[in-house]
């Protein structure tokens, strides 16, 4: 989505936004971006999303934590074999607690990392295709297009009665 040339429309109504997105998708616009101030599943459905790869990050992170937790406790016990309280040097049941906490810690941190990478955050470049209203109540639809495609996109968006449209190199 590095392209910033196209048309940006803001809508007041959710159903108009979802309809516009569906029509744009049907007309062959694949790079439609929507904006909303809260997670709106109807827009995600209209865009047709698959499973988020974040779940793989969670799983790999969590399993790394489990393995790391067991490996570290076991290795450090072997590294300096000291009998405490008559327990075996490798007291695996006791290490379950450490391994469990490490599972959660690594799973959570890797989930956040995966989310940041997948959703291109943090993003410090100034937003050109954006309207502060999108974090308040309005919905936005951005279509990167030029030439005749831009005319078609403008026509489709116009049919759904947008509150405002902007277009150009920095829409």
């Amino acid at each position, binding site marked *: 989505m590095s392209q910033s040339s196209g048309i940006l429309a803001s809508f007041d109504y959710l159903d108009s936004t979802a309809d516009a997105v569906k029509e744009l998708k049907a007309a062959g616009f694949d790079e439609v971006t929507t904006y909303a101030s809260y997670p709106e599943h109807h827009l995600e459905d209209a865009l047709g999303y698959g499973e988020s790869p974040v779940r793989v990050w969670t799983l790999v992170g*969590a399993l790394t934590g489990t393995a790391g937790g067991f490996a570290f406790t076991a290795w450090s016990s072997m590294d300096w074999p000291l009998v405490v309280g008559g327990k075996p040097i490798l007291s695996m049941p006791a290490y379950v607690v450490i391994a469990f906490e490490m599972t959660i810690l690594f799973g959570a941190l890797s989930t956040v990392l995966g989310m940041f990478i997948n959703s291109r955050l943090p993003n410090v470049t100034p937003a050109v295709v954006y309207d502060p209203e999108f974090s308040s109540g309005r919905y936005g639809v951005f279509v990167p297009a030029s030439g005749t495609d831009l005319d078609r996109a403008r026509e489709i968006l116009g049919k759904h009665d947008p509150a405002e449209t902007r277009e150009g190199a920095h829409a």
Partner: protein
Amino acid sequence: MATATDANLTEAQRRGALAHPDVELHSEVNRDILKMLSAPGKGWWFLFSLAVLGVGLLFGSWGWQVYRGIGVSGLTSPVGWGAYITTFVFWVGIAHSGTLISAILFLFRAPWRQSIYRMAEAMTVFGVMTAGLFPLIHVGRVWHAYWLIPYPNARYLWPNFRSPLVWDVFAVTTYFTVSSVFFYLGMVPDMAAARDQAKGIRRKLYSVIALGWRGTDRQWHHFGKAYLFLAALATPLVLSVHSVVSWDFAMSIVPGWHATVFAPYFVAGAIFSGVAMVITLAVPIRKVFGLEAYLTTKHFDAMAKLVMLTSMIVFYAYLTEFFMAWYSGEPPEKQMFWNRLFGHYWWATWIMLICNGMVPMMLWFKRIRHSIPALFAITIFINIGMWFERYVIIVTSLSHEYAPFAWGVYRPSLTEMGIVIGSFGWFSFWFLLFIRLLPPVAIAELKEVIPPMMRRKSGGHDGGDAVPATAPAGD
């Protein structure tokens, strides 16, 4: 999902079914919540000054203890764990309801959590920050506290991973890290909302915290999944943390501590005290900021029911302890529980039983659950009762172990009392900063339960693609 039946309902019925009947537009949420981030009033400055005094008391008393040594506390043989560990367990317990409300109730799709969860989560983070001070205070020579962390030291001597105290270090630091991350991640979209409205230095500050959030479909898609998985990870974590804290006691053979019921008993107690504290904090915030439209009696009613449920679980655990002491036939165990009720610390035990088991039973009455002042008063009793619960568990057991010549009495010193009271100032200090600098009510999540604006009023006219009037809560 009310679309199809909307036509059959009266306006009052339709609004009664909504989570926030007096909020209509999504932009109203931004206006009402972001308004709270404006310049603070006199009341805030008054409370903040009190909190700063508390912080001064905390660090002053702690400094005195560092200067003179741990002897200025009342901790001595046989009671080596006293007010510090009591207060540590108290604050870890307070921290629990935040994750309960933000993670567990998120997974259960409880429809009332949205307006309360940000405050509860902040309470978690600050609660763990407060609790985390106490092991440092308790160890006495705080400059050696880093010995708890497993790092390759000069002799390659590692911590004893069989020890519940080391488990506790891992559990509490993991809990602090994960709950802070969860708190921050949930706040990113709201910081973007604050950024888009703010000016000047605040705009710059919020821009940095919001990480350039735009609310695009891609961001929401991955955010939603990440949030779900974090909730799924935080749920077993929250149950594990207080279980591990309870094993600090239960893994020993001290009478009154060595019980298998401890883990679930502590978890229930933690949720009980935490939800009570959420109510205690939410009542004044609602009043001061005029959040009546967002924190309705429905929300307080739901929390009060949770308090009542956990109160009964906790009281049942008390009775189980007494029963098991009698049923075990172990003289030290039997004497311990007799002592709790009628021994030296009888008053603490009765405060615990009355505040945690009896006072919350008033919540059976709907009139009381719907009365904000009554709820406030009841939850104050619970906060006191839950501090005394930990005091009873720790002090009565240690003061009266197996060998009669080693029995003794513990009394907290002035230094300890200063630190315990000061910890409330430390917690309030962070909480008061939070309600002024960050949106204390989750803006984006509230919008999920407020019906979006629709062009087609009742929907359903043009077939299957009509969007339902009520968006499903959560993911």
